[in-house]
Structure formats: C-alpha cells, structure tokens
C-alpha cells in the first residue's frame, strides 16, 4: 500500500514541482548595482520571462522567490529579515551578486557579510554584478531545486555559516 501511496504522492510532487517551477513570482529586493544587471536580465534582451519568472511582485504576500539583489547593509538587515518572514510558504531565496553571497569587497563596519548569516538562502549567484547569463543559470538551478522538492515544501534546515573570527586591522 505504501508504495502505491508513494507512487501517487511522488506523481503529485512532480506535478506540483513542475507547476511551481514554471510560475515563479519573484520579489526583487533591489538595493544596489546588481539592480542594473537585474533590469537587463528582466528586460527584452536576456528576458527572464522565457523561464516563467518574468512577473515581479512587490509584495511578499504574492511572491514565491525572494531575489536579494545588491549589498545589504546592517541598517537594511532587519527590513530584509522582516520581509522574508512575511513571505508565504513555499518560499525560496536567491542571493544575487557577491555582496549578498559573502559581502563582496565591502569588508567593513557597514555591510552584512553574506545574507545567509541572517536568512536561509537556496541559490547563490556570484559575480559583481553577475552577467545576465549567470543569473539565468542560477534561475535554472533554482528551478531544478523546486522540481526536486517534496510537495510539503519544507526545506532542509538552513546551515548558518560557522562563526569565523576575523583579524581586526585598522
């Protein structure tokens, strides 16, 4: 019986994964220079709409994927966490650009060194700014992840990076 049910639920998972994968409503949390490259990716030349992810929704209630685009400073971090928590399940996070992956070359008092220290991230797109082709590749990786996900949408617990002590030099 269980494999019969298993057959049924796995078929359902695949159908759900397929439906979610090609109808990504993205919340572009744009702050800095990567926003220009995000514009170029979303517009007609590199067209993100070919992958079904063309509709930006500026409210976390209607968005599936949170595109964190551009440097997140410590003043912006609480806003980002609040918006992430207000997003409806199932939700994913894409960290767009090296400033969101690891803080980039702004290793100073003002910048959050990587947003995965404050919210769980699914796909990292490095690059400063990443070329539109990187972004589309990142999107494909996200879609593969969505397809392979269990229908209940729960994700592996986000591994927050180990506490690494850094030399404080003036």
């Amino acid at each position, binding site marked *: 019986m269980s494999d019969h049910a298993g057959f049924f639920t796995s078929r359902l998972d695949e159908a759900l994964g397929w439906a979610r994968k090609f109808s990504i409503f993205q919340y572009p949390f744009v702050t800095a220079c990567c926003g220009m490259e995000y514009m170029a990716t979303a517009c007609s030349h590199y067209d993100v709409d070919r992958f079904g992810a063309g509709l930006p929704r500026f409210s976390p209630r209607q968005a599936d994927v949170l595109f964190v685009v551009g440097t997140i400073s410590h003043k912006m971090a609480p806003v980002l966490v609040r918006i992430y*928590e207000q997003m409806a399940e199932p939700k994913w996070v894409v960290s767009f650009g090296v400033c969101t992956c690891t803080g980039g070359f702004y290793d100073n008092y003002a910048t959050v060194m990587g947003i995965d220290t404050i919210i769980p991230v699914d796909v990292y797109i490095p690059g400063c700014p990443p070329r539109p082709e990187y972004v589309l590749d990142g999107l494909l990786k996200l879609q593969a992840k969505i397809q392979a996900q269990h229908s209940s949408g729960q994700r592996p617990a986000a591994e927050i990076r180990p506490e690494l002590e850094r030399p404080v030099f003036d």
Partner: protein
Amino acid sequence: MSEYVGIVIFFVLAGTVAGAFVALGSVLGPKKPSAVKSEAFECGEVAFSLPVGHVAVKFYLTAILFILFDVELVFVYPWAVAFRGLGASGLVEMVVFLGILMAGFFYAWDNGALEWH
C-alpha cells in the same frame, strides 16, 4: 426554460474552476503561520497605525459618484440587446433617461465634486 440552461452551465463551470483553484491552493500549499507574518506589510517596517478610523470624505464622495454613474450601465445593456424590437420609442426613452443622468453629471461637475482638493 431552455435558454436559461446556458447561463446555469456557465455559472456551474465558473464555480467549479474557481473552487478548484482555491481548494488546491489551500490543501497543497504548506502553511506556517507566524506572528510576524500576520502583521501588516508596510515596506519592511513596522506599520505606524493600521488605516482604521476616519478616512477623508473625498474618497467617499468619489466612490459614490462612481457607483451612481456606473450602475446606470446595467440598464443600458438590456436596452442595447433588445434595441431592434423596441423601435423608435425605445430610443426616445433611453435618450430621456440618459439626459436626466447627464444633467446630474454636469451639476456634479459644475459643483467641483470631481476636483480633488
């Protein structure tokens, strides 16, 4: 009786499709309610005050004017469908009806009800 079957089928179809979407969404979508999620979304900040309490009267005025002139269309549609059968008298009645309506509109316009400030 027979011509109403079309309408019934139309409503049944609409109901099932809409209901299916809502049901599938609520059944299959995972739900994780949390305190922050239920708060109002105000661009990532804590909302000062929910827009409860008094609202400027201008909104109400504009809404009423809209309803007034929009609902009249409900009467124009059946008239337009049965236009052939009504002949000239139907046309005159509609012109009179719309005339009264336009008089009301010009009065409101003249009084500045449409201006915002």
